[in-house]
Structures are given as C-alpha cells and as structure tokens.
C-alpha cells in the first residue's frame, strides 16, 4: 500500500510557493532526518572515538603519565579475568530468565485483559505503575521487603508456615531476588506493548476461523502469534538491551554479592572504570559488549524480519 507513494518528493508541484518552500520541499527527506542524525552523531562520535583509542591503550589514573599503546593487551586480559567471566555468565542468566518471565507474564496478562477486562481502563494504568516509579526508589523498597529480619516477605513466609530465607543474602537466591524485582518493574512494559498489539489485530481472520470451527488455541497459534510477531520482536529487543545494562537493582540490593552471585557486566564495568580507574580496560570490555549487542540485534532483527 505504501508503495503507491513511490517517490513522494516528485509529487511536489514544482514552481509553486516561495523559493524557500521549493528548497525545503526538494530536500525535505534529509531536512527531517537531519536533527536526529546530527544530534546522535554528535553525541556518539566522541564517545566512540574515545572508547576506541582508550581500548588499545594503558590509561593511568595519573594525568601526567603518558598513555601507553598496548595493542590488543586489554582484550587479552579479558580472557584471563575470572571476575569478568562470572559477570558475563550472570548477565546472560539474568537477561534470559528475566526477559523470558517478563515476556510470558506480560503476554499472558495482556491476553486475559484483552479478552475479559477490556473496559476497565484504569486497571490497566494501575498495572503500569511499577515502571513509572524511579528505579532507585523501587530498588530501595525491594531491599526493605527482602530484608531477612524486618522484611515483609519473611513475615509472609512465616504466616504461610514456610521457613524464612536470607533472600539477597543467600548465595543461591540472590540472583532470583534481583530477577523478581526486575520482573515486577518491567513486566508492565511488555504488558502495555502486547495490549497495543492485540488492539490492532484485524477481526476478519478470526471471524473466518470461527466459521471453520478452529479452537481458541489454534486461533492463538495460527493468527495471534504471527500477527503479534513484530510487536513481540521489538518488545523483546528493547527489554534485552535494557536487561544487559542492569545496574540500579544490583548496586542497591547486593553490590554483586554474595560470593559474586550477582556480579553483572555493567556493575563490573562500573568498578573497573570508576573504582579501579582503569579506563583502558573498561573501554575494551565496553567495546566487546557493544559489538556483541549490535551483532545480536542485527541477527535478531533479521531473524524477526523487522527491517523493511
């Protein structure tokens, strides 16, 4: 349908309007893109160059010590850095588990809401509240809830006759507590996107399927899922990109502990860059993270056929 406007620039009646209007119309495409492209280029160019140069240098915290070219030395260091490996593993586990849970819960809730509760609009807004609270306040509130002695969660366990837990202090549960808080905060995001997707479904194919006697389950798999695929893809992509950057929750709930159980990539990069002030190494790790993220996203977008 869009293709009918093959080259809308040419549809402009040339010769009409002021000289400025004619100039504007001729260059409209680039003029409309320019502010965004220039701002993004301006703000990413310098950091990228800075990162690329720092990554191959040994940068001393002492400004008077000249930077020393170390080639791929910083990258080689990554291979033998056990703390980094723990951080990578934890980040992958966190991203996979948290985003999967958020997706399943968000989609499930959206389906229920769409089918049964559609008219109660304010309920929808209430379900969205977690993502509107400052993440720092969210993290601190969860810290109180998880607190083993005064926290409500252990009080709840006690009332249910279950043994109390150390939560963030338990090496086996710490990651789960971070994931739970993240799922609480960001499932609403997926929920909203899925609702939007469901609201824009066409009704004809479903009517046809009904006539054919297809079960609700079949309709879901054969119609809803394919229709929703673009929304699902973009929702997952945005969440994965954010999950890879997880910082606030870990920084406040566990600072990477206990025993490294919640050490994540961004926490580790933060420590290397700001606590150890080892800018070269931090840049090298960040560069690898950036390439991995861009590579994954390219693959994912192709796979989901998001591009057009």
């Amino acid at each position, binding site marked *: 349908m869009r293709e009918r406007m093959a080259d809308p620039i040419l549809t402009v009646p040339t010769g009409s309007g002021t000289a400025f209007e004619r100039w504007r119309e001729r260059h409209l495409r680039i003029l409309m893109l320019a*502010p965004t492209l220039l701002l993004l280029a301006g703000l990413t160019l310098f950091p990228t160059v800075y990162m690329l140069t720092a990554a191959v240098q040994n940068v001393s915290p002492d400004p008077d010590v000249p930077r020393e070219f170390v080639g791929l030395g910083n990258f080689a260091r990554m291979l033998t850095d056990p703390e980094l490996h723990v951080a990578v593993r934890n980040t992958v586990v966190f991203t996979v588990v948290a985003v999967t849970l958020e997706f399943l819960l968000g989609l499930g809730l959206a389906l229920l809401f769409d089918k049964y509760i559609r008219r109660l609009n304010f309920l929808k807004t209430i379900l969205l509240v977690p993502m509107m609270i400052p993440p720092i306040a969210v993290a601190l509130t969860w810290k109180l809830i998880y607190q083993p002695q005064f926290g*409500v969660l252990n009080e709840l366990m006690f009332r249910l006759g279950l043994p109390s837990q150390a939560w963030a202090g338990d090496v086996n549960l710490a990651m789960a507590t971070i994931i739970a808080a993240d799922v609480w905060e960001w499932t609403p995001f997926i929920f909203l996107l899925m609702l*939007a997707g469901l609201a824009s479904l066409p009704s004809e194919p479903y009517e046809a399927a009904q006539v054919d006697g297809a079960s609700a389950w079949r309709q879901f798999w054969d119609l809803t899922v394919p229709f929703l695929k673009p929304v699902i893809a973009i929702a997952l992509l945005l969440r994965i990109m954010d999950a890879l950057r997880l910082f606030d929750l870990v920084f406040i709930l566990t600072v990477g502990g206990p025993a490294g159980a919640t050490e994540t990539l961004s926490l580790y990069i933060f420590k290397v860059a700001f606590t150890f002030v080892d800018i070269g190494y931090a840049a090298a790790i960040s560069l690898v993270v950036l390439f991995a993220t861009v590579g994954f996203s390219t693959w994912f977008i192709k796979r989901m056929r998001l591009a057009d």
Partner: protein
Amino acid sequence: MATRAWHRTREAIFRMLAYAVMAIALFITTFPVYWLATNSFKLDIDIFAVPPVWFEFSPTLKHYEAAFIGQPFLIYALNSLIIAVATTIVSLIFGTMAGYALARFHYPGRWRYQISFWILSTRMMPPIVTIIPLFIFFNFFNLLNTRLAVVVAYTAFNLPFVTWMMKSYFQDLPPELEEAAMVDGDTRWGAFVRVALPLARPGIVATAIFSLILAWNEFLLALILTQTDRSMTLPVGISGRVTQYTTHWGEISAAGFLASLPIIIFALIVQRHLVRGMSFGAVKG
C-alpha cells in the same frame, strides 16, 4: 444441548479464573507501591518493626518535612520537571520528523534499514563507559552542571525509541489522506504538519509518556552531569539519602512516592491513548 451448557459453564470458569489471576497481579503490582507509600508516613521505629506494621501506625509528615524543607528536594523536583518536559518536547519534535521521513520517503538500496538500525544501535552503547567521554565533552563546552547538558544527553538517549515508535505509527497510517492533501495543492511538509501529525496524535501521546518516564527517572547520566542544586534531579537527590553510615528510608520513600505521582497522574489522564497510540506494524502480518 449439553455441549452448549458445558460451553457456557466453561466460559464462566475461565472468566472467574481470569479475574482471579488479575486480582493476584494487581495485588503483586500494588503491594510494593503501598509499602513505599506507607513507609513515607511511618517513623523509623515502625519501618523497622518486627513483625512489620501493616496498617496501625501513627502517621507522620516528618519525612516529607525533612526531604522537602530540610533537604532541597523541591528544587530537585523543579529541575526534574524542566528537564523531563524539555527532553520530551525536543525528542518528540526531532523523532517524529525522523520517524516520518523513514516511514514515508523513498530510499535507495537498503538505506532505510541502515539508517533505522544505526539510530537504534546508538542505544546499545554501554552507558557506563560513555559517561567519561560525555563528561569531557560537556566540560569542554562549559556545560557541566547545567540543565541543558542533561536535556541534550537525554534527548540523544530518547531519540532512538521515539524515532522507532513514530516510524511504526506512520507506517500504519494510510497515506491516502496526505496524497489527497497534496493533490489539493498542499506541500509535502504541509501534508505532514496538517494531515499526518493530527492523525498521529495517539502515537505522539503514547511516545511522550515513555519519554517522560525515562527523563524523569534516569540516574546514571544525571549523576555525572549534574553537581549542585542548579541542575540536580530527583533520582540523584534520592540516592544522596543513602549515606555512608545510614539510609534515610523515610525521606527516600517520601521523595520516591511523590516523584511517581506526576507520571501516574499523567498516565491516567491520557490512558485512552496509551494502547491506541502504540503501533508496531502488527496488522502488516
């Protein structure tokens, strides 16, 4: 008609189950918010009571007084408001134009995809390491500790999302109305401003909400770019109440609770746009 009766019963059971699941979801969603809100009215002794105090505590406004009169949280809130509104407006203007250009114009080869993907990929930079160059960058222009620097940084951070949202929205709008306007003698720009933009209003509102949430709540960039009351935002102010020795839970809850209200109220006002305004090409199949 046994099957029909069975059908109806099954439907009723499903409906009850759906309500039950929703009730649980609502409880889990609201409980931490309730806890945050009530903690802001509790004395510390009640925040740390064993067993926890659910309803019966003598409410106090002490923490609100401490945060908003004792500490400059009012100023932080004003900074946050100015920064969030300015960011949202600028990124919506830029992003809507870019989204429209990407949705409607013709591009040679795979340029449409390349440009779109590059815009999105700027958001994949690990923010922690871009902070140092950004600090040097803004210091060079003597813009550290100004609200302008924060707005510029947030706008850049927001643009990929805004551009993508608006691109999808425009792609799902039928182009015929714009064509008709141009046949009637309007310019391409005129068709965008007078025809496409009004049609895209739900999309703009929904995008604005996300942009507001991000700019209102962002922490890491604000931490490095702001320094004093002149530019410091609410999240940085809140984290400042976690001190070396102790955490001022009451003040944090008070500021956190009040800070969430404007966004929630705004979301309630525009809630009918929230779902309608988001389109990701679902109908394209």
